[in-house]
């Protein structure tokens, strides 16, 4: 026991609510952080993938002889070499590891090569002779649903139809606005390409080091394809260079393992940027028709929406995207009478799946466009119409779920409305649309302002068993109390590792927290998606810490005679509530105290298949944006001048990291509104490169004012709300609205191109 001392109770340094710095920050600025493409091992060989050049074809024959004849080639593998089930997939196992008899999209993997040099592997892949019989491709989602359309899948072209019916289906309103809206195919464009290293193990299994979003769901799929027991396929998270949904599906995982097991050598695979465009799913393009009706005072009477999501050749997470688009699709408004039909469709276009915002992004462009159109018809202010109808705590949403935590829609709009507007453009080319390309000195430039308010569900929905596992150990190491936190929850850049440390510091009162490498050696952490990790894995870490703390306080109680209930952990010691220290952890902890907890949020329910009614979601996160743009209406060029936002985050667990999510998420919404589209013609991608697929640069993204509201959600750990996705949902519609306001053109498609603005398309 140490001498009794008192210390002023203070917020834990580096704990919850502080902007603690990242544990991997130093490694990342020095170049020492090991990303999945940086891995290297003695004796390793390189894998390469041969992909289909056609969106739809029958494979007639494959000759691998010329590839095998190339010096330096170690293996060439085809579908027959898949030892387990040749099918993977997130929700439906419908996607071959390697195509066997048909290919259903351009870029579908057909063969694998392992060779000593990556260029040798690529050249060998190019020497494989595949004879295809090209078939008619289905490349339009609405056409795919028509009777008699060629079938992409034997069971039909419909992945899911979500039918939502609430209130009076024949309700009429004196003022009605109808909008058709299209959203193009966006790419996650994470900078770190798909990559990893598979190492054959002595037990006949394989160790895979890979960049992903959910190690355990990957493991399930890899195990099935390899025909191995789970304990022989061990996954460890390698450094992840961004994800944004694009790493939910498998890419090179099974391929590298197959090659490693076949060659008995470590196999490294790294996609080029071009291959990356074929190697992961994209955001679903959507074709939508919206019709909203209101009383003359603006009160919403009905909302009708039809959304068609093009899922491409394989299901991926299309069903869940359709679910979000349907259940969240009319926006954060009170509407008594609702009809929504949300469809996900198979086509021979590139497969689509998860991307930040997940079904809500597409819908938001349409529901915010129809709200603007309705305001104009009513002669009402666009923000006032939204505030009048904005969801509040206690309201019922369109699935009949009561919103039982703060829903400050009107306040968020007021916040962005009250933010200072940027000054008029300076007479500086760099602040003009077109920039130093010298397309205007201000002539033809019109300023516009647009608003949006949206919401996003947090966590997995519709009855999914959404849990995370955390193992926390507290021990004395080198004379210091040290906590170690072990979860399998993927750090993809968002800062989960920092938040895990912060929670341990706050709950256990220790400074030093080690984040164990993320691997399948602990239970599932669930997916790093749906803005859920701080909530769900954060909740698991908090619960594991509290279980450890309870045991430590029992030990302290036995040692000191104070009841455990009167003790707290603080500054590496056990103290009374008054702050008086009664025991140092360095004295108390002779053995490590370890607890593992599987933690679940409140359950959600499957929705009714006929009405779409039910408590589908666990939490809603609200955000509003205001965009200010300067549009050169003669050239059709746009400069976004400001992109300001207010978001209710419940509790800012790490304010700097939250701001980083809001900034980055807003920029991705801006990108979709203005420039980002995977162009697909006849099922083929026309722009698989960063030369032709544009993401915003530092010149395209304006300064942002961000206001964070912290209305705690009483059902969530620390009152927090998921923060990653909401800004991507609300920013794009505000940009589109601002451009419409500036140029007076009824723009009904994103990304908005110059010819849409000038009317010359």
């Amino acid at each position, binding site marked *: 026991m140490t001498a009794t001392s008192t210390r002023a109770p203070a917020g834990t340094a580096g704990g919850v609510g502080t902007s603690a710095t990242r544990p991997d920050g130093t490694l990342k*600025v020095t*170049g020492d952080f090991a990303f999945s493409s940086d891995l290297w091992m003695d004796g390793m060989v390189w894998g390469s993938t041969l992909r289909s050049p056609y969106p739809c074809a029958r494979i007639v024959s494959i000759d691998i002889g010329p590839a095998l004849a190339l010096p330096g080639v170690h293996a060439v593998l085809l579908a027959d070499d898949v030892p387990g089930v040749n099918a993977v997939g997130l929700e439906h196992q419908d996607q071959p590891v390697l195509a066997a008899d048909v290919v259903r999209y351009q870029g579908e993997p057909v063969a694998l090569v392992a060779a000593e*040099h990556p260029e040798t592997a690529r050249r060998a892949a190019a020497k494989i002779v595949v004879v295809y019989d090209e078939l008619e491709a289905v490349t339009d989602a609405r056409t795919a649903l028509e009777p008699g359309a060629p079938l992409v899948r034997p069971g039909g072209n419909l992945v899911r139809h979500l039918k939502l019916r609430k209130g009076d289906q024949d309700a009429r309103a004196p003022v009605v606005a109808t909008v058709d809206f299209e959203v193009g195919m966006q790419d996650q464009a*994470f*900078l770190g390409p798909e990559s990893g290293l598979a190492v054959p193990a002595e037990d006949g299994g394989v160790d895979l080091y890979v960049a992903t979003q959910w190690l355990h769901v990957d493991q399930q799929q890899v195990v099935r394809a390899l025909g191995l027991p789970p304990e022989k396929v061990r996954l460890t998270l390698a450094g992840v260079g*961004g994800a944004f949904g694009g790493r939910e599906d498998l890419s090179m995982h099974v391929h590298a393992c197959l090659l490693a097991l076949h060659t008995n050598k470590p196999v490294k695979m790294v996609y080029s940027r071009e291959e990356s465009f074929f190697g992961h799913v994209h955001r679903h393009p959507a074709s939508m028709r919206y019709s909203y009706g209101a009383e003359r005072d603006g009160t919403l009477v009905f909302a009708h929406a039809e959304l068609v999501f093009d899922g491409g050749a394989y299901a991926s997470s299309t069903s869940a995207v359709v679910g979000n688009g349907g259940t969240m699709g009319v926006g954060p408004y009170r509407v008594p009478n609702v009809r929504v039909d949300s469809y996900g469709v198979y086509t021979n276009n590139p497969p689509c799946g998860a991307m930040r915002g997940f079904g809500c992004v597409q819908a938001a462009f349409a529901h915010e466009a129809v709200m603007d159109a309705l305001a104009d018809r009513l002669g009402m202010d666009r923000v006032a119409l939204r505030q009048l109808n904005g969801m509040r705590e206690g309201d019922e949403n369109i699935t009949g779920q009561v919103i039982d935590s703060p829903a400050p829609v009107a306040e968020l709009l007021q916040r962005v409305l009250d933010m200072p507007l940027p000054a008029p453009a300076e007479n500086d080319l*760099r602040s003009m649309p077109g920039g130093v390309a010298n397309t205007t000195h201000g002539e033809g430039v019109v300023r516009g302002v647009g608003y949006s308010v949206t919401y996003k569900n947090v966590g997995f929905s519709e009855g999914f068993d959404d849990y995370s596992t955390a193992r926390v150990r507290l021990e004395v190491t080198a004379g210091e109390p040290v906590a170690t936190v072990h979860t399998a929850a993927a750090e993809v850049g968002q800062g989960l590792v920092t938040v895990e440390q912060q929670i341990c510091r706050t709950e256990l009162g220790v400074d030093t927290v080690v984040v164990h490498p993320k691997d399948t050696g602990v239970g599932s952490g669930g997916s790093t998606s749906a803005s859920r990790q701080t909530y769900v894995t954060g909740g698991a870490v908090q619960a594991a810490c509290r279980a450890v703390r309870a045991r430590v306080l029992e030990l302290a109680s036995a040692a000191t005679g104070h009841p455990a209930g009167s003790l707290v952990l603080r500054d590496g010691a056990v103290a009374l509530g008054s702050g008086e220290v009664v025991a140092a952890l360095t004295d108390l902890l002779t053995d490590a105290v370890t607890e593992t907890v599987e933690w679940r949020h409140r359950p959600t329910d499957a929705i009714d298949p006929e009405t779409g009614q039910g408590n589908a979601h666990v939490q809603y996160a609200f955000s509003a944006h205001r965009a200010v743009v300067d549009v050169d209406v003669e050239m059709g060029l746009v400069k976004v001048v400001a992109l300001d936002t207010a978001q209710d985050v419940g509790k800012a667990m790490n304010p700097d*990291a939250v701001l980083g999510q809001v900034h980055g998420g807003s*920029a991705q919404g801006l990108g979709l509104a203005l420039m980002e589209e995977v162009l697909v013609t006849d099922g083929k991608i026309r722009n698989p490169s960063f030369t032709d697929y544009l993401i915003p640069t530092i010149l395209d993204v304006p300064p942002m004012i961000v206001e964070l509201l912290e209305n705690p959600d009483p059902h969530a750990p620390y009152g927090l709300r998921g923060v990653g996705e909401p800004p991507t949902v609300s920013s794009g519609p505000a940009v589109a609205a601002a451009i419409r306001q500036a140029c007076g053109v009824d723009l009904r498609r994103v990304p908005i191109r110059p010819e849409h603005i000038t009317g010359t398309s």
Partner: protein
Amino acid sequence: MRVTATVNGEPREADDVWEGESLLYVLRERMGLPGSKNACEQGECGSCTVYLDEVPVCACLVAAGQVQGRDVVTVEGLTDGEALHPVQQAFVDAGAVQCGFCTPGLVVAAHDLLARDPQPTDPEVREALAGNLCRCTGYEKILDAVRLAGDRMRATPTPRVDQGPHARGRAWSP
């Protein structure tokens, strides 16, 4: 072929280099310097930015053979591994690092900017970093980091290293 160059102040040699390899490949796969990143390998993203004879270049666009006898400094060469360069420290402190894949290229690009202009305006920073894509941060905190690094470097100027700017084992400062 064999390629010899000075890399981060040390003479380095790579054997059996295929003529089609880039400087980026040689650094990453033959010299054990994977800090320079491979996000696009077509000169669009800036994640592989290194100094070649003191000029920042995309290492992916430099053929390995072009480096023969020349001087290369990568992100790994900006610090001796103990104290971070002020630009690196500012990226950490300002929260400018998320996934970190763009970070090495941005650190080198910002290092070059502040060497040329210790007090750039925001439009100048934007112009200088326009060749470096970042997908995570929306660039706001990257701007913060460059401002912070500039402030700190002006407050505490570091003397130029006498024996040339690239001596590994010490910070290279303008």
